[in-house]
């Protein structure tokens, strides 16, 4: 990591400079475009040499934490290693050069990968059909809830517009329900982190469209009453939605389809190791049970068994007239899907189950070590899934040290902060998810850092409260950022 300020790229800019070797030779004739439709002002784009651009963006990259450089115990985000092979083989020139509207005959290799990916995802989730088109988890959620609505409508069951969401849910769950034109009904969880069945019984009824659940939940524990939840919601005529954010915890151990879920989205950029890219692209494939098959978003890859070899083709509205439709211009994040395909083939049958096993082992190990240090575990009576919650309410009360302070101080020790202040119902919380790709030695170093920070909090609390001290910047003034909006560069003042 570097520490100096890197100039904004426009500060390198000089009129007449450029990466000339990248430009087409000469200018094209545009005499036929009417003057009134043409641009008169030059856009503010940098005029820099190729070397200046390469250095600038390399330096910017060096101001980041990343999986390749740092451990991210980031709960609910599954920041595991992104194997280089996935990137390499998704970026073969033929795959990169394939136009989305190229004929199926010029895509049998690509389509075969997509078809097999659909089949593998069916197997690991226990669902009956898969659509790969959603471009992120939130869009997969949208597709899921839209399918639930379409299902009820197709049955003439028009009153069902309520989506039940536990209070610990990801923010995308209620936001998605709203985007689908539904009303959100939040229900509490009990002291041990399971859904409050009485509250659920009280809220279900003829208006229930469905329930959105993460299992293991965002509290880091398995929802033990899942079969009862399924019975109650199905009994009331609603459907069950599985938020796949925590699928990594149970991969190869238990399947959402077997738990009674009717629809699921998967975050391929979590469970199946495609890169987070500093905020995307993700991929939010959806899976459905029997009842929702006709409503899957298009396109889907189908296979026609031919006499000689199978022929892969796109399934569209013609094949699925009740589909909720098209969520992207083409087929979603195809390149991300190729990466997930390579990853799943490299894990194979046995490797798939090991994901859930070692993710759970790592989480329970860190939990045990932090408990020994005196950190308070939010759900001490429960077995951790692939993640768990530490609450710093005592440190906040006694030492005036917040979860944010500990998170920021961890950066100084070379660890990305865990997820903080989520879920919202646990005060001063850190949600910690180590993932299966971290070694015991890395986990031990993390625990050592947590021990050192606890000691600092007692001996020299200012050190923790004013952290980080070794990052390119110290804590940023977010209030000023929101009040004095500076969203584009306007020249050196």
């Amino acid at each position, binding site marked *: 990591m570097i520490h100096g300020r*890197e100039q904004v*790229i426009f500060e390198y800019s000089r009129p007449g400079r450029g990466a000339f070797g*990248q430009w*087409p030779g*000469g*200018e094209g004739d545009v005499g036929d475009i*009417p003057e*009134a439709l043409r*641009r008169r002002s030059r*856009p503010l*784009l940098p005029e*820099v040499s190729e070397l200046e*651009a*390469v250095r600038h963006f390399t330096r910017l*990259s*060096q*101001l980041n934490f*990343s999986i390749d450089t740092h451990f991210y115990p980031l709960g609910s*985000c599954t920041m595991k290693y*992104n194997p280089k092979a996935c990137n390499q*083989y998704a970026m*073969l020139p033929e*795959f990169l*050069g394939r*136009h*989305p*509207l*190229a004929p199926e005959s*010029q895509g049998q290799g690509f389509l*075969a990968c997509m078809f097999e990916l659909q089949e593998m995802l069916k197997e690991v989730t226990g669902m009956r059909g898969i659509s790969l088109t959603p*471009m992120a988890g939130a*869009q997969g959620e949208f597709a899921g809830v839209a399918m639930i*609505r379409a299902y009820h409508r197709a049955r003439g069951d028009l009153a069902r517009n309520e989506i039940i969401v536990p209070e610990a849910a*990801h*923010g995308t769950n*209620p936001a998605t329900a*709203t*985007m689908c034109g539904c009303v*959100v009904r939040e229900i509490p969880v009990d002291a041990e982190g399971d859904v409050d069945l009485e509250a659920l019984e009280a809220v279900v009824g003829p208006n229930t469209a469905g329930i959105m659940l993460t299992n293991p939940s965002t509290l880091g*524990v398995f929802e033990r009453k899942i079969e009862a939840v399924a019975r109650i919601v199905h009994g009331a005529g609603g459907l069950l939605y599985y938020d796949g954010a925590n699928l990594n915890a149970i991969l*190869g151990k238990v399947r959402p389809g077997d738990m009674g879920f009717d629809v699921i989205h998967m975050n391929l950029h979590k469970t199946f190791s495609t890169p987070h890219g500093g*905020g*995307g692209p993700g991929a939010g494939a959806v899976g459905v049970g029997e009842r929702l098959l006709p409503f899957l978003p298009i396109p889907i890859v189908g296979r026609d068994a031919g006499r000689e070899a199978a022929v892969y083709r796109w399934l569209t509205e013609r094949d699925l007239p009740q589909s909720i*439709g*098209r969520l992207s*211009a083409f*087929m979603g994040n195809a390149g991300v899907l190729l990466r997930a395909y390579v990853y799943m083939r*490299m*894990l*194979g*049958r046995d490797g798939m189950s090991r994901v859930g*096993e*070692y993710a*759970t*082992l790592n989480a329970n190990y860190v*939990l045990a070590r932090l408990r020994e240090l005196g950190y308070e575990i939010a759900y001490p009576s429960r077995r951790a899934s692939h993640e768990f919650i530490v609450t710093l309410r005592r440190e906040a009360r006694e030492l005036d040290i917040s979860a944010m302070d500990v998170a920021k101080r961890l950066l100084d020790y070379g660890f990305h902060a865990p997820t903080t202040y989520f879920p919202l119902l646990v005060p001063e919380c850190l949600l910690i998810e180590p993932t*299966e790709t971290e070694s015991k030695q890395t986990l031990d170093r993390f625990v050592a850092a947590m021990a050192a920070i606890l000691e600092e909090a007692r001996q020299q609390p200012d050190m923790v409260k004013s952290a980080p001290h070794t990052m390119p910047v110290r804590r*940023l003034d*977010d209030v000023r950022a929101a009040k004095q909006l500076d*969203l584009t560069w306007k020249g050196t003042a």
Partner: protein
Amino acid sequence: MPFIPHTPEDVAEMLATIGAKSIDELFEEIPASLRVRGLPGIPEALSEMEIGRLMSDRARQDGRPLCFLGAGAYEHHIPSAVWALTTRGEFYSAYTPYQAEASQGTLQLIYEYQTMIASLTGMQVSNASLYDGGSAVAEAALMAARAHRRSKSMRVLVPRSVHPFYRKAAVATAGNQGMRFEELGYERETGKVDRAALAAFAGEDVTALVIQQPNFFGTLEDVDDLTDWAHAHGALVIAVVNPTSLALLKPPGEWGTQGADIVVGDGQPLGVPLSSGGPYFGFMTTRMEYVRSMPGRIVGRTVDAGGKEGFTLTLQAREQHIRRGKATSNICTNQGLLMTAATIYLSLMGPTGLARVASVSHQRTQELVSALTRIKGVRAAFSAPRFHEAVVQFDRPVAPVLRELEQQGVLGGLDLADHYPELGPALLVCATETKTSADIERYAALLGETLRRAQAA
């Protein structure tokens, strides 16, 4: 064990610390009846060497035909530096920049991107990307309904000449919230929005008018007049644009007397490979007054505790992780890595290079249209000026002709039979700066031959 570093000794020590006898014991809280024993449908693991062979074989099977398809995805030259930098682990494997102090690189890059895309579109503010052009149109319609407080109709006018897949994505995404999209026809002679169809909405409550420039046919719309009409009739203007074209064409911020209100499009032409349709990224820019109605992440420049300049996510009160059910959108993960590639691409191209890409692409398309329309039985469909894409009509069905070309390794364009049956046999074609005169001659010669054979038969 692929990607799992644990030695047997590690596992034994860890289980001892936990106080469990086996890893299996850690799953004791899952009801036994739900546990799966094995996944027979998953194939055995492949080594990197084996998967490499498989993927290379499959890629080779797909080949590298000479491609004259456009329709929202354009083959442009991508400098080597773009993806060499974008796939650096520090960009590629970083998380969303919530921890600002450990993410200054990504945050500053987004700020630079916002500056470039806002200037290119002639608007004041940009977000940090949406999924793609199609979903961006849906988000723009929903944003217009929030931003335009006087309009209650949730009614958006969308010309039939807007990308058909964008229209479908908009309906699928925004239709659930009561958004209504109403179609406007186009003039058969020019390919431009039918003004008579538009005039029929005068006096009605319309939330927004969508204007795509160039439209799906490549035809240039009278954007000034359309924008002024919309504003005179109380509607906002959603511009859908090709970012490469903006090096040459009037930016939406300067359309008509007031400029467009929301600008969206697909950023794919800016350094993003075709890759079967994604990942691409959607861009969105707007006026400062609507910034709080905008979905997606936004980066601002501020100072740290020591007064040093730094960058952070801002205006997060609009977003799902804070506002939950009342957020502007459910969007969370967006297309950060593609936005990264585009920022590097724009830095290497600069204003001059991008204008050259645009003008040379346009000239190539003009050459292509001239070459194709010299063939007997082929004519240009529309009379209005265009940018770097065009519709040509045949005297016989397009599909069999395209299949013949395909056999020769040429993708001749998009058959419009499904989307625009009213045009008869029609083909949407595009040539960018990547096509040489020889490529264009090859295509024209093959098409001429194919059509001659068909006409003789």
